[in-house]
């Protein structure tokens, strides 16, 4: 049982050949490897296949974004493609951090291989995760599962209630995310307006023949330029801290729904086995009357086999249900902590911004007073 803390950082995105590679790095163990974006998707594929009947919440990878990627490939150095690269880097880092902080996943050999192995074989079949990708996949699976019915017993209410909560929360987070998007776009608009205004004040200052007034107006233009910078940073903060946090959790809640589905599938497998066993027993009963000793022997063997399966699948189902419960509780704890720490980061950034703003105003005041 490993208990060492793993710190993962994704740094220095580079453009190599056709795709962006990043370097996940262990701190405390000097490991550094190059990975492509498709490698991250490949890791997710492997984990979700392996863990599929376990009931774990598999952290979802960041979405591919065809538009953003094309711009980067073409080599455009404009702010939006720089932003795209940073956005992807931060998202991959968060993804890895969630993977390594999961007590089960950190022990998974595929994860170890991803973090340590020098040359990773190229991941294939990551097309399924392109475009609207991940959530589409989850939703399709969910629909299939919903068609099943499940008998109600004590522990089932917990699962039904939780599932409903998760769905509600996902809707709320979507609304919040839309609002943050709107806020970010207004802030960017403010940046643009501020820059244009700064220019107009510079022009007014230049056209002014009184020296003191001209100087004050030019200083005003400079203050506005600095404010534009602050607005940019604020917009980035809103985006990278909040919008991405909410987007992550919307996808994570999708993953939570995914693990509920896993429990359903485990139950279904158990139920199907029970029904198969029932059929076998009925077949045996028929054979008892038909007096065919060979076939009877075979039937008895099959019954034994299926009895074992039923027992196994029941155990699997119970284990999966337990895992789902544990995972959901762990998720909720992490969620509160995650949000809290991001908000603290956000507030620290705002505070810093305000301090700088205060300095700008304090510097400008004597200039304004000097006009008379």
């Amino acid at each position: 049982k490993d208990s060492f803390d793993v710190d993962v950082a994704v740094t220095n995105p580079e453009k190599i050949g056709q795709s962006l590679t990043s370097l996940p790095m262990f701190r405390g163990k000097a490991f550094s490897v190059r990975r492509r974006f498709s490698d991250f998707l490949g890791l997710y594929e492997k984990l979700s296949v392996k863990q599929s009947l376990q009931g774990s919440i598999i952290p979802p990878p960041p979405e591919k974004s065809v538009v953003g990627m094309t711009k980067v490939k073409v080599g455009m150095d404009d702010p939006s493609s720089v932003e795209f690269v940073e956005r992807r880097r931060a998202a991959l880092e968060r993804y890895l951090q969630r993977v390594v902080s999961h007590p089960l996943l950190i022990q998974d050999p595929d994860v170890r291989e991803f973090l340590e192995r020098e040359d990773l074989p190229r991941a294939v079949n990551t097309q399924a995760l392109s475009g609207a990708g991940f959530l589409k996949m989850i939703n399709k699976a969910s629909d299939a599962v919903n068609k099943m019915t499940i008998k109600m017993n004590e522990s089932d209410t917990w699962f039904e209630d939780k599932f409903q909560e998760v769905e509600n929360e996902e809707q709320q987070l979507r609304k919040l995310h839309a609002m943050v998007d709107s806020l970010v776009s207004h802030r960017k608009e403010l940046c643009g307006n501020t820059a244009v205004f700064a220019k107009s004040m510079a022009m007014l200052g230049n056209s002014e023949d009184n020296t003191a007034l001209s100087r004050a107006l030019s200083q005003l233009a400079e203050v506005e330029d600095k404010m534009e910078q602050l607005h940019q940073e604020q917009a980035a903060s809103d985006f990278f801290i909040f919008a991405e946090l909410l987007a992550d959790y919307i996808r994570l809640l999708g993953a939570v729904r995914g693990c509920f589905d896993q429990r359903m599938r485990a139950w279904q497998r158990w139920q199907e086995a029970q029904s198969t066993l029932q059929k076998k027993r009925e077949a045996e009963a028929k054979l008892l009357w038909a007096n065919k000793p060979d076939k009877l022997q075979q039937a008895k063997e099959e019954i034994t086999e299926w009895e074992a399966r039923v027992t196994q699948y029941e155990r699997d189902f119970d284990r999966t249900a337990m895992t789902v419960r544990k995972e959901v509780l762990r998720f909720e704890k992490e969620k509160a902590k995650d949000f809290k720490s991001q908000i603290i980061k956000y507030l620290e950034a705002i505070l810093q911004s305000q301090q700088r703003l205060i300095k700008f105003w304090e510097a400008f005041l004597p200039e304004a007073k000097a006009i008379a």
Partner: protein
Amino acid sequence: MMEEAKEETSALSVHGHNIQVTEVLKDGDTLTFLIVSPKLSGTGEYHVHRTYEDFEWMQQHLFSQEDVPGIQGVIFPPLPAKAQANPSAKVMKQLGVLGLGEWQPYCKALEAYLQQVASHRVLCKNKAVEIFLTSSDPPGKQRVKKNIFNRLSQAVEEMRKESHKDVDGFFQTERDQNLIVTGCAKNAAERFLDVMQTEQKIAVACGHFSAALHLCVEPGEDPDKQAFSKVCVKLSEVFDSMKKNMMTVAKNNVNTLGLGLDLESRYQEAEKEMLFRRTCKLVELESARRNADKAKPVKKAAMEEVKKAAETEFNQICGVAKEEIAQFKGIRMAALQQALVQWCEQQLLTAKESADQFNQHLQAFRGMAY
């Protein structure tokens, strides 16, 4: 004897610099403004209610003072555009910053206008001003005859006179300078309006986010659920603070620099109007001179009279204009300085208060269990 019979126009009985527009009342479609003017002698104030039409009445009287020599050389304090109780989009666009903030900036602009008129050494002598500020009845509604100052009525060919070459270097320079500054000031006022309107949008967006966070609060005793609910509630408070901060920043902008740039833009425009009137007079004078020179002996004397009258009037205008320009420079500097200093002081105060607020929020979050 004639002089004794003539009613002497006295200066005002109020403190011109302390006139205030304290309230605006909405009655259906009409806006009425409460104007308070401190009495010069003794204590007490005049309280009068005036509509925009009353302002226009006074303005028309000021424009039509043909008996005042060189009146066309006066830079008339600019009256803000008409405000309506339920303004159309066109009216709002015309008003610019004055259309924001529930008519408070508009009142301030009217106040500035009245102070400027009441402190103007030529204009304050007009009876209409005294009546406007002190009469408890509404001032007269009679339409004054159409005046020469309404630019909109000027024919298109008059506009060509705007670029007519001047005979006086001082005025040519002033005209050139004014043209540039008028354009820059108008542009700056409009760009600043964009800034203020976007700030308001951000405030509204923060408000929505704050309200939506409350919907994420879930009932139940599960400690982890409670922790998250608490986070949402506290975050909602943060965004509420952000909304309030942004609203105050926008309000400061409107009340100081916004109003300042708006006044500068309109006052430069008023100077432009005066310089144009003078230029038109110059064109008239040059034309009169040519006519007098070319006139046949029969008409010569009459043409000479016309020429002399034009010269006298033009010189009077130039004299008044020179004084007005000097005054204007002082008024304008003082107004801009006040706008900039107040802007800076108010924003500095708001920034400090905000920083405190956010710091409190930060401490609250850090102090939260786990």
